[in-house]
Structures are given as structure tokens and as C-alpha cells.
């Protein structure tokens, strides 16, 4: 039996000692003041008169303000994503009827590239707030949202459905109500998955920042002040120093968010670990340590705790129905009403989509399908290329505890960097080497999506059981034989997850990698992504609708036919936990 926390009292005492008003508290106050000022600035921007196109100042001095505006858009979008996740995921997990519609719908939403949402969002919101910037800002925020929300929702739904049976039963026997069950059991259980997916989502949200802040819709040119539009303008004017500054600012913002937001959250989330056993690796965050030393925050926390303690207790324990033998997720009538509204909305939406697509000729449908196949080829090629380098690299990182400790945080930050910001450099290199965008776009896709494969390979490599590795070493299975008999089979399930995410990302990335503006010239490669970009720019809504529908259909079909099967194979034949 391990003696827990022998030094608990002592360490606590030393903590108390450090909690004096001091430098830390001054920093906290300064941080709060800064956030307040920034918030006011952003609010001013939002409520200002409608200016569809802002002149972007390309001097480096303007960058901090732009970076702040972009960051606040990303964070607001994240708050929306989290809210959406909590509601949508809960509904899908708790209501067996709604689940049948909500899950496939989520699959479809995930496959729609941001430009598919853009015209609807922009036109509707700008019309809803005439004369103020709110509509346009909200549209930009919601476009970022479409890059963030879906995988968080999947993760949350999955967690809710996999709460261990004994924990669910204990909650029932001890009469937790719906809210208590959520607060004490389900949310804590879902937290770790939600935190990791939040980090991925935030990175995914930045991917289209350049499009989200600066876009053309027919004869209207929209531009919001921010880092993305700064970069767009710099690229359009071919201003290399400005591009470098923008890349630098973006990198700073990502590192800042990682250190001040995500690290502390990840460290805090460790307490929701379910698995037993000692700490695999104690994670630390200097920022969280700093905050914990603040006397001011401790006082605030205590005050909140006191006010909660005075809250009245719940009077009546809820009446809990036993489950019927079939397993009981029943649909109640308020939920039925919501479900009806959902179906109605979907029907109306589909009908209007059909109306929009009426004018498209059969030949155009045919071309679109052909282009989809070309893009599918690029997506698969990008996935294969990504696999070729990430498998050895990921194994090297994952199999060495030291390398994974040092490199993993670095890789995480690098992966959050929006690849389209690097496209100008790559395109310049490609045109220098004489490679056309037809093949070059594969490289651009790869740039954005290889990380997903790398992450998963690293995770898979760290999860290979020590006894299997020792066996391979003990019996002198080396080189390719070890790769084939040990490494590849044991990372296969992780690899499949990586492929699915990477391919999804590559489809989305096709809209920016098959059509690139470089030094005032428009380079394009035949493909569905290029067609979507062109259709959006020309405000050719029928063609845009058709292209998005085709892309979504191809993606979802391919998921069902190929990825799902590989996933099944991974779970039955290559799972290490069975």
C-alpha cells in the first residue's frame, strides 16, 4: 500500500507562506487590465459603423492590435464551439431518436469546407445588422467556428456514451439528478478528451484565418482588421517583409495561447484521469504555478466558495425510473418537439438547396464529379506521402521517452500554425523548381495535414507494451522484420485515426491549395477545391452549392466505404487492449 501525500501538510504550509500580495498579484492585475482594455477595443471595432473593407496597415507596429483582434475572434468562436458541443453532444447522447439524425448530420457538417458556409453566413448576418460591423464580425467568428466545433462534439458525444457502467449505476443508486449526473460524472469523464480536442480545434480554426478575415463575394470585397487580412494583403502586394512579420506574429500568438491557455488547462485536466497507477509523466505549467501563487486569486476563489456554501440544499431527491431490460434511453416529449423542429429545419434547408441547384446542367454535375475524383486522388496522395515520412519519424519520437518529452510540445505548437500562411514560400519554391500547381497542391495539402498522422503515430508508438518490445529485442527481431511484425501492426489503429483526420483536413485544404494567389497572379490546378473557390469568388451560388454537395457526398461515402472498414479492422485485429 502506498502512503499518499506524506508531506501534504508541509507543502501546504509552504504554499500558504508564498501567498502574499506581491509581484504575482501586480502581474495579475496588469493582465486583467490589459484584457479589459483589449475587450473595449474589440467591442469598439464590433459596434463601429459597417466598413466592408478596411485599409490594412502593413507596418509592423500595427500587428499587435491585429493579432489581438484575430485572437479574440478565435476565442469567441471557441466559446461558441464549446457551447454547441455541450448542447449538441448531450442531446445526441441522451436521445436515441435524435441520435439517428444528429450523428450523420455531424458527419456531413464536418465534410463541408468553410467556403460552403461563407456566402450564407455573410449575406444573412450582414443583412441582419445593417449599418454596424457586428454582422460581418459575427460571420467571421462563425466561419472560424465551422473549423473548430465538429471534432469536439464527436469527442464529447463519445465520452458521454462510454461512461463506465459501474459509475453510471452508482449515480443512479445514489439518486443524482440530471444536472448532478452531468456535473459530477459525465463532464469530469469527458474533460480530458474535450481538452485535447479543444487544442486541435483551435489549431483547425486558425487554418482558414486568411479566408475568414478577407474574402471576395461576387463584386463585393470584404476585409476585417486582423492578422489574416494583413497576411492576405501582404501576399497580394508581394510585400515580403510584411509576410515575414505576419508569420512571426502568428507564431507568437500560438505560443502565447499555448503557454497561457492550453498548458494550464491540460495540467489542470490531469485530475480527471481515469486510469490507475502512478503519474506517467507529471506535466507542469509555469503559468498555472504562477496563478496558484497569487493571493488575490486565492481570496477571490475563497469568496466564491463561501457564497456557494450558503446556497440552499436541494429539497426533493428526484424520482428515478429504473431502466427497462432493453436499456433505457427514452425520448420525452419536449425532446420530441425539438426533434420535430430539427427535422423541419433540415427539410426546409434541403428544399432551398434543391431550388438553388435547379439551374445547374447535367454536364456541370458531370464535370464536378470528375473534378472531385481528381481532388480525391490528390487527397490520397497527400495522405500516402504524409505516412511515408511520419511513420519513421513518429516511431523515433514515440519510442524514446526523452525525445517525446522534448519534441512533443514543439510539434504541437508547430502543428497549430496555419499552413496557408506558408503557402507563398512553398509556391515560390515550386515555381522556381518548375513544378506546376497540379502536383504542387499535393504538397500544400500535405503541409497542413501531415501533423495529424504524426501525432497519432507518436501516440501509438508510446502505447506499444514494453513486453512486446522486449520480446522483439530478446529474439533479435531487427530492422524491417521488427517493423513488419511489431511496429506497424501495433500502431495501425492509431494510423487509421490519423488517416481519417488527415484526409478530412486535406479535403478542406483543397480549397486553398488548388487555387493560390501569388504575386498578383492566380495559379490554379483543376480540382473541386479550385472550383469551389472560384464559384465563391464569382458569387456563382448554384455551382457553389453543387460543388459543396458533391464534395460532401464523396467525403462521406469514402468515409463509410473505406475508413470505417479500416477502423473496424483496426479494432478487431490490431487492438492491443482486447
Amino acid at each position, binding site marked *: 500500500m502506498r502512503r499518499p501525500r506524506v508531506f501534504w501538510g508541509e507543502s501546504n504550509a509552504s504554499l500558504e507562506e508564498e501567498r502574499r500580495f506581491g509581484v504575482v498579484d501586480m502581474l495579475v492585475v496588469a493582465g486583467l487590465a490589459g484584457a479589459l482594455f483589449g475587450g473595449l477595443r474589440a467591442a469598439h471595432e464590433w459596434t463601429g459603423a459597417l466598413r466592408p473593407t478596411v485599409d490594412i496597415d502593413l507596418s509592423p507596429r500595427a500587428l499587435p492590435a491585429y493579432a489581438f483582434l484575430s485572437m479574440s475572434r478565435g476565442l469567441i468562436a471557441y466559446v461558441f464551439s464549446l457551447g454547441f458541443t455541450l448542447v449538441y453532444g448531450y442531446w445526441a447522447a441522451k436521445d436515441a431518436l435524435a441520435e439517428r439524425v444528429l450523428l450523420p448530420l455531424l458527419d456531413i457538417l464536418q465534410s463541408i469546407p468553410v467556403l460552403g458556409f461563407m456566402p450564407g453566413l455573410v449575406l444573412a448576418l450582414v443583412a441582419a445588422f445593417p449599418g454596424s460591423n457586428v454582422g460581418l464580425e459575427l460571420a467571421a467568428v462563425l466561419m472560424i467556428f465551422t473549423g473548430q466545433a465538429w471534432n469536439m462534439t464527436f469527442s464529447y458525444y463519445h465520452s458521454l456514451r462510454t461512461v463506465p457502467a459501474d459509475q453510471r449505476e452508482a449515480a443512479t443508486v445514489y439518486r443524482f439528478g440530471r444536472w448532478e449526473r452531468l456535473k459530477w460524472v459525465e463532464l469530469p469523464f469527458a474533460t480530458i478528451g474535450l481538452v485535447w480536442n479543444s487544442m486541435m480545434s483551435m489549431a483547425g480554426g486558425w487554418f482558414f484565418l486568411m479566408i475568414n478575415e478577407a474574402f471576395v463575394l461576387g463584386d463585393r470585397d470584404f476585409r476585417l482588421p486582423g492578422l489574416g487580412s494583413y497576411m492576405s494583403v501582404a501576399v497580394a502586394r508581394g510585400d515580403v517583409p510584411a509576410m515575414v512579420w505576419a508569420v512571426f506574429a502568428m507564431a507568437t500568438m500560438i505560443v502565447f495561447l499555448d503557454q497561457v491557455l492550453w498548458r494550464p488547462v491540460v495540467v489542470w485536466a490531469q485530475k480527471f484521469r481515469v486510469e*490507475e497507477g502512478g503519474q506517467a509523466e507529471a506535466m507542469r505549467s509555469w503559468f498555472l504555478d504562477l496563478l496558484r501563487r497569487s493571493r488575490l486569486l486565492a481570496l477571490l476563489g475563497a469568496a466564491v466558495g463561501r457564497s456557494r456554501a450558503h446556497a440552499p440544499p436541494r429539497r426533493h431527491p428526484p424520482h428515478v425510473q*429504473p431502466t427497462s431490460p432493453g436499456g433505457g434511453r427514452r425520448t420525452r416529449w419536449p425532446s420530441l418537439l425539438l426533434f420535430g423542429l430539427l427535422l423541419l429545419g433540415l427539410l426546409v434547408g434541403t428544399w432551398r438547396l434543391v431550388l438553388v441547384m435547379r439551374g445547374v446542367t447535367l454536364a456541370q454535375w458531370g464535370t464536378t464529379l470528375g473534378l472531385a475524383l481528381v481532388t480525391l486522388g490528390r487527397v490520397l496522395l497527400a495522405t500516402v506521402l504524409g505516412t511515408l515520412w511520419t511513420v519513421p519519424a513518429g516511431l523515433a519520437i514515440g519510442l524514446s521517452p526523452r525525445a517525446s518529452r522534448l519534441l512533443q510540445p514543439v510539434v504541437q505548437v508547430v502543428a497549430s500554425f496555419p499552413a496557408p500562411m506558408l503557402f507563398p514560400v512553398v509556391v515560390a519554391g515550386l515555381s522556381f523548381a518548375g513544378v506546376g500547381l497540379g502536383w504542387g497542391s499535393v504538397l500544400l495539402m500535405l503541409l497542413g495535414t501531415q501533423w495529424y498522422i504524426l501525432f497519432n503515430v507518436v501516440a501509438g508508438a508510446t502505447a506499444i507494451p514494453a513486453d512486446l518490445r522486449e520480446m522483439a529485442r530478446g529474439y533479435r527481431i531487427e530492422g524491417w522484420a521488427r517493423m513488419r511484425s511489431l511496429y506497424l501492426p501495433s500502431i495501425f489503429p492509431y494510423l487509421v485515426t490519423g488517416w481519417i483526420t488527415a484526409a478530412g483536413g486535406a479535403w478542406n485544404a483543397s480549397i486553398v491549395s488548388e487555387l493560390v494567389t501569388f504575386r498578383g497572379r492566380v495559379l490554379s490546378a483543376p480540382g473541386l477545391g479550385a472550383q469551389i473557390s472560384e464559384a465563391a469568388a464569382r458569387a456563382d451560388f448554384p455551382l457553389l452549392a453543387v460543388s459543396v454537395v458533391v464534395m460532401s457526398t464523396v467525403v462521406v461515402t469514402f468515409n463509410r466505404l473505406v475508413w470505417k472498414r479500416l477502423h473496424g479492422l483496426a479494432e478487431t485485429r490490431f487492438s492491443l487492449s482486447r
Partner: protein
Amino acid sequence: MEAPLCELRGVSQSFTQPNGAPLPVLQGIDLQVRPAEVVCLLGPSGCGKSTLLRILAGLIRPTTGEVLYHGRPLTGLNPGVAIVFQSFALYPWMTVAQNIQVVLQAAGLPRAEVATRAAQAIRTVGLDGFEEAYPRELSGGMKQRVGMARAFSLHPEMLFMDEPFSQVDALTAESLRAEVLDLWASRRSQSSSILMVSHDIKEVVYMADRIVVLGAHPGVVRTVVENTLPRPRDYRSPELLRMVDRLHDIITGHELPDVASPTALAGPEMEPLPTVSTSEIVGLLEYLDARGGCEDVFRMATDTGRDFGKAIGVVKAAEMLELVDTPKRAVALSGTGARFLASDVAGRKALWREQLLQLGLFRQLRAVLEQQPRHELRREQVLELVILRLPFEDYERTFDTLVRWGRFGDLFAYDEERELLSLQ
């Protein structure tokens, strides 16, 4: 006799299998929990004892039959029950104190009382000083103490325990049993009762006033044994050991009929296959051989560290194959069994094959396979055959056993990828 706290009348329960056929788990159960008593449900694995506990707790609604609480039909959860779980069911993100407090909060107690009651419960189980520890820092025994403190803190009318000590090491389990009985004795005036599910005969005799012996497939009440041994009881007292022996005899009397007639199996009716691996059967034979060819079945269960239900399954399987005999409570190596042990690998396989073909299921399966053009059958086809012949069995498990046994005797080959069974 006092009125029971809660009661089952003619309760049956069946679950729906994936193919739509019902799988009966419990059949015609009558059971009472009376005030101030310790009732234990004893039975082999698969007799539905945990399901029974969950029906009484109101977690599961039975397919048919009545559940009464103080004479009235029970709707919803049983208000008088707190459960101690086999797997502890603690929330890993809450400290020991929080794990107990949330339960009291959910019961609607005022804040001040929540704190005092939780502290009191923690003291009662001897976990002072561990209030702020997280469950992952605790050993199995300490975790179960938290589970017990959580249940006690509510002062329940009935304490339900679902194999509470099976995941705790033997010594700790012994002390926990004594502690539970002490606590129960100190609160006996409040007419609180304990219902415990267990497969450990000694544990049951040590704890229970009344022992409900269940039989499996589907679960039925075999008999109820009143245990009037004076408390405190001693594990080594001759009275207690006699009681243990008596229970052994009751269980074996049902589970291992003396006049087992394997020849009857050759008829159209088929005996279900116990889910037992070939190595377990061979292991049993080796075990018996090492002990001069004969051993008491309970001794064997203890020696092999197996729970009793599992051990019985292995003996049954060996008996079906005529590798052992079961005179009364003993298990003895048969002539065939001795010959099996004396053979080399090829000889063993041949003998095994011969014995398999004594069983109707294998014979018939071979006949069907021989009729096939390529001597192959898809998994679903075999499953259908099994369902047809053994409608009350878990067909997937039966299939797995079938494949294992057949492979060992070189009778069948099975291709997992293509799900094809073929004749060897």
C-alpha cells in the same frame, strides 16, 4: 415473522440476444429481505445473482413478476437501498471526502450535515487522514472502505453488497467482513438488513443468517438454508466447517448428478457446452494425476484458486468427454482420461477427437460439413445450427468453445478472417 422490507414474487428476467431470441437469466424467483438480517445469494457464475440484486434495488425492471417494498409495488428506485459495488465505483476525479459528500448532497441534506456525516462515515471505516486523497492513491481494500463509508453515510435501511470483497486481497477481505458485521450489529436496533451476493461459500457461512442457493441457466432458487450459528463466528469452528460442507453437498448434488449418462448425449437432444478451454481440461487431468487420480471437488477449487462455478464448469466439461468420473463430491480420472495422459501429442489428439465425436453436436456438425461441396461452413451457418439445437444457450460462446475443442482434436480448422469453419 415480521413483515419483509422488500420482496420478489415470481420474478423472471430475460435479455434479448442480438438475434432477437430471449435469453432467460432468472426464472420464477421468490425472495424476501426481512428486517435486521443478513441474506446472502450464493451461486455459480451465470446464475443471475447480480441481476437479482439490481432488480431488488430498482435498477432493473423484471420481465415478469412483482417487486414489493414494504408490501407495496416498487416503482422506480428502492428508496431504502445503498449499494457497495464489486468494482468500487468511485469517481476518480473526486477525493475520498468528495466521493461521500456528493451522495449526501444528492440526497438533499443541508451543507452542514453533509460535512459532519461524511466525516463521521470516514472515521467509521478508519480512513481518517485520507479525506483529501484521490482513489488512485488507495489500495483496493481502502477503496472498498470508501465505498462502504459512502453507503453507510446514508444510514440505509438495506445495504446491498455485490461481491464486495472479490477484488480485495484475502487478508483485507477477512478484516472487512468482520468490520461490516460489527457496524451492522451496532445498528441492528434500526432494523437495517444486509443483502450480499457472493460465490465464496466460506464468506457466506461466516456472514449470513439466511443463505439463498441459486442454480444457473437460467437462475432459480435451489434452496434456502437458515444459518443459526452464534455470532461472532470463527472460520475454523467445527460447526462452521460442517455448515460449509453441507452447502458444498447441496451445490454438488445439483451441479454434478451422480448418474451422469454421457451416452444419452448421443441422441438428438444435446448437452450445452460449458465455456471451458481445452487447456483447462488438460490441466484438470494433470492435476488429478498428480494427486493419485482422485480429489475432492472443493479442495480442487481452492487449490487452483478458481471460483467454484468455474471449477465446476471444467469438471463438467471433462465429464462430458468421459475423461473423468464424479462419484459424489469427488472427481476421479477415468480410464480414458488416464490413457489420454499417457499418450504423446498425436495420441492425445486422436483420443480427444474420438471423445468429441461421442457428443451429438460435434457428430452432427461433422456430418453437415461432409455434405458440403468444399467441406466448409460459414460462421453464421454454424451459429444457426447451434441456435436450433441449443436454444437457451449463448450461441456465440458455444461457437467459440466448439471451435476451440474441434481445433484441439484436429477435427476442424477455422479461418478467423473469412469466418469459415472447415473439416480438417
